[in-house]
């Protein structure tokens, strides 16, 4: 760190280099160039000239804008210099003070912090949309928003949250912690790692730009053929989601490659932290599922721009093709949003119970099992869509089978709690809330998986309550638990515990008050994504909206806590404030640039709490020392 400050160049030199500001300038320039090309091309296409809406120009603008943004950040420098004969290197801008955070940086810890700030920023925008949606639903008829603005809010909320929660754990915590946990000094592909982050703000901004293009009416699922007929804002959704698909593929690839190839000596598969197992199970899903999303979005873009008809039944296409492609991605996606949570809570439970993870192999089997089965369940989203009726029992079975490996995670939690010495810290509270929320989410999922029951619940608020219980009650609670737990390691400062507890209780109570009544609203016939509903349901909706505002307030408490603790109070974190065993807690807080001076030797499992004479997980100063002991 000190070396970086000494070598820091003058401030003006940092501003004119390849960085965020240059990226924005070149991004805007790229947008206008792409737009101009598109206008020229589209001038001869009837569908463009007859509707006054040139989708080719918009899409090319977005694509060249993103290319310009990435070029401005410096992503082309290395490939070009290699073409010109420069020697290979794996490091860029790893030392350079605060400027590192605004450019391509190959230090995985910088990327982790970039992700944390970026994801939380867009997460709060998505949350704000939810507040606007709930405000409209205070009344059974339109009051605050036109129907098209309302639907745009619904789509922005859903898509933004899907994009950000996909990155929420693997981005900040995965990038920061995985290399440290396995005893490595970096990720396998450090530039791709940085690229995967910088695609997130690009996608976020592209998605938000839909507001200026008349919005999009399709929700986060973007069903064709509605998406093909929609106005220009749809292009923003398609490009943004495709960009996130690229980022997710890169993250998955990077996490898998890093874990498979860069584990320190002694870091056997049975010593790998549960969190790392969760990261690679998720990485596998991302690597295999996200490319399907990219292709699907590209096909819709082709329908909208160059007049193909993949999804237009009037011209030989099929809506079912879209539905199947989308959910082939979409169902693994919801486990991309569940598995990291499993990893975090099992990790936290061991630390704050002061006990080993009860069934290590069982947890791993559970997470890998969920990952594999999740590729065989997607048609349960299509039970009433008119798919071949013979398929329904099969997808009902596979969907319900997923609860068996999920049950492993619960059994582990229960075993770890037994005869534990429980410490009720803020991270532990979030981990325990995960189990409560996910239990409700899982049990309500059975209703959706059962065909006769799904006929009444499909497409209703019941489904919406179900997946908020799993994603928000599950993943978001686990993420906050992990964040409170690892924040001292990542930033070197401690989050305020009292504010943390206020955040937790406010969030936990208002979350359940918000989403539990929505099961009833759905059962009683309120479809999703409507701005008008039966007036008999106004009582439930008002209760839900007011509870939702309290979720908003709890997030404000969290934001205050982060700003106060990180910027104002800056209470120094100890090296190991939780007395945890993981390798990351053997390092200083925050972790120095290359993590370890030399690759450590791993000699024990991170979970040997209560084991007499258990050695520390890693011997930090070179393999020679440990060799004598073993």
């Amino acid at each position, binding site marked *: 760190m000190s070396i970086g400050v000494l070598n820091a160049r003058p401030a003006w030199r940092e501003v004119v280099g390849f960085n965020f500001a240059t990226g924005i300038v070149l991004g805007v320039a790229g947008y206008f160039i792409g737009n101009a090309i598109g206008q020229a091309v589209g001038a001869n296409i009837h569908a463009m000239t007859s509707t006054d809406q040139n989708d080719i120009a918009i899409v090319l603008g977005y694509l060249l804008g993103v290319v310009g943004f990435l070029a401005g950040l410096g992503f082309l420098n290395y490939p070009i210099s290699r073409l010109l004969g420069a020697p290979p290197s794996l490091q860029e801008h790893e030392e350079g003070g605060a400027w590192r955070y605004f450019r391509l940086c190959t230090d995985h810890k910088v990327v982790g912090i970039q992700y944390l700030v970026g994801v939380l920023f867009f997460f709060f925008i998505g949350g704000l949309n939810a507040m606007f949606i709930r405000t409209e639903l205070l009344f059974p008829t339109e009051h605050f928003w036109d129907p098209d603005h309302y*639907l745009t809010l619904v789509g922005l909320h859903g898509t933004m949250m899907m994009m950000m929660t996909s990155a929420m754990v693997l981005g900040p915590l995965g990038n920061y912690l995985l290399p440290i946990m396995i005893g490595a000094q970096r990720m396998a592909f450090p530039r791709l790692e940085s690229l995967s982050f910088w695609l997130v703000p690009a996608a976020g901004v592209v998605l938000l730009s839909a507001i200026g293009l008349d919005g999009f009416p399709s929700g986060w699922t973007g069903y064709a053929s509605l998406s093909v*007929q929609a106005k220009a804002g749809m292009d923003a959704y398609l490009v943004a989601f495709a960009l996130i698909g690229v980022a997710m593929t890169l993250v998955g690839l990077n996490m898998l490659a890093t874990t498979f190839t860069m584990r320190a000596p002694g870091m056997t598969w049975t010593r790998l932290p549960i969190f790392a197992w969760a990261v690679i199970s998720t990485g596998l899903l991302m690597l295999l599922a996200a490319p399907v999303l990219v292709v699907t979005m590209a096909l819709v873009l082709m329908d909208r721009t160059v007049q193909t008809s993949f999804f237009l039944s009037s011209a030989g296409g099929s809506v079912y093709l879209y539905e199947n492609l989308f959910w082939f991605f979409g169902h693994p996606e919801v486990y991309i949003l569940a598995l990291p949570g499993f990893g975090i809570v099992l990790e936290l439970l061991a630390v704050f119970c*002061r006990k080993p993870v009860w069934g290590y192999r069982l947890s791993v089997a559970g997470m890998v099992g969920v990952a594999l089965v999740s590729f065989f369940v997607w048609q349960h989203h299509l039970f009433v869509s008119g798919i071949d*009726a013979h398929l329904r029992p099969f997808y009902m079975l596979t969907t319900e089978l997923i609860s068996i490996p999920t049950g492993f995670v619960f059994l582990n939690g229960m075993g770890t709690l037994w005869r534990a010495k*429980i410490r009720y810290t803020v991270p532990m509270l979030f981990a325990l809330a995960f189990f409560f929320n996910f239990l409700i989410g899982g049990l309500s999922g059975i209703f959706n998986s059962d*065909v006769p029951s799904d006929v009444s619940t499909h497409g209703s608020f019941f489904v919406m309550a179900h997946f908020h219980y799993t994603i928000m009650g599950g993943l978001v609670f686990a993420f906050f638990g992990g964040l409170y737990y690892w924040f001292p390691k990542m930033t070197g400062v401690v989050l305020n515990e009292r504010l943390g507890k206020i955040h937790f209780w406010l969030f936990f109570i208002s979350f359940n008050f918000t989403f539990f009544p929505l099961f009833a609203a759905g059962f009683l016939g309120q479809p999703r994504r409507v*701005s008008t509903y039966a007036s008999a349901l106004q009582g439930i909706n008002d209760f839900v909206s007011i509870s939702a505002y309290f979720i908003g307030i709890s997030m404000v408490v969290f934001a205050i806590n982060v700003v106060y603790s990180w910027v104002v109070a800056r209470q120094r974190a100890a090296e190991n404030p939780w007395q945890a065993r993981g390798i990351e807690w053997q390092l200083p807080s925050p972790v120095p640039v290359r993590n370890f001076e030399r690759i450590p030797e791993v000699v024990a499992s991170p979970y040997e709490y209560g084991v007499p004479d258990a050695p520390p997980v890693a011997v930090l100063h070179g393999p020679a020392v440990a060799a004598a002991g073993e």
Partner: protein
Amino acid sequence: MISIFGRRVPGELFKIFIAWAVVSAIAIPVVWFLLGPHLPPGTMSSSAADQQFDNTVLVVCAIPVAAFLVIYFTYCLVRFRHRGSTLEDGPPLKGDGRVIVAWIAATSAIVLFLAGWGSWELFPGEHGAGGGQGPDPLQIAMPANAASALQVQVIGQQWQWTYRYPQYGFESDQLVLPQGQLVEFHVTSLDVVHSFWAIQLGVKADAVPGSDNVAFTQPNRVGSFQVRCAELCGIWHGHMFTEGRVVTESDFQSWAQQQKQRLAPASSSLPPYAPSYYPEPLTRGG
């Protein structure tokens, strides 16, 4: 190694099991007899009654699972709370094979029962549970009286429903059904995906352009029911609702004749309606 089912610590687990048994024994009859008959979607039609029964069974299955976990967690969180400021490790218990086998056996039994029973619910006499079955409904699940069913084409478009009665030769914006008669819905769309949801009838079938989605139900009681669109279809999606009616057989016949006469000037110039909107429907939905 201390094991959970070892002889040294049986008392605590027995307490949990007894509390669980008591809670379940009280809650299950309460749900079955008191909550069950009031669960949506009610008993207005055969398929609605099937779904209500299904929902009741699922709640009854969920209760012991939820009760066990909540009681177990609550017990642990209270009993094993660490007091004092000194850091103390718990016993290093590791997974007990018998517990794991018992757990897997129990969860598998529940899951396989639910999947098997849910599949059975789609078979004979259940009318396919009121869900859209695509153009080619399961033959084995076909109701016995399907040949004499009243055919109703449901045509979704942005943003309204139109109902065609091909056996009577007219179309209407009203959905009126006779009591006690099997109804065969043929659901389709003219533009984007909609979903025909007759809430109290327990019928839901996506309206997909170019496809014929068949769903069965048999209304049992006279009364009105809500029809809503359950798939996002554009800006007026939330406004795409109507009210349908179930009337007696004779009322239905008089309504149908009245509609037919009123619409005769238009209908007479058209060719007769086919049984489904697309005369040659796809044999497979997708």
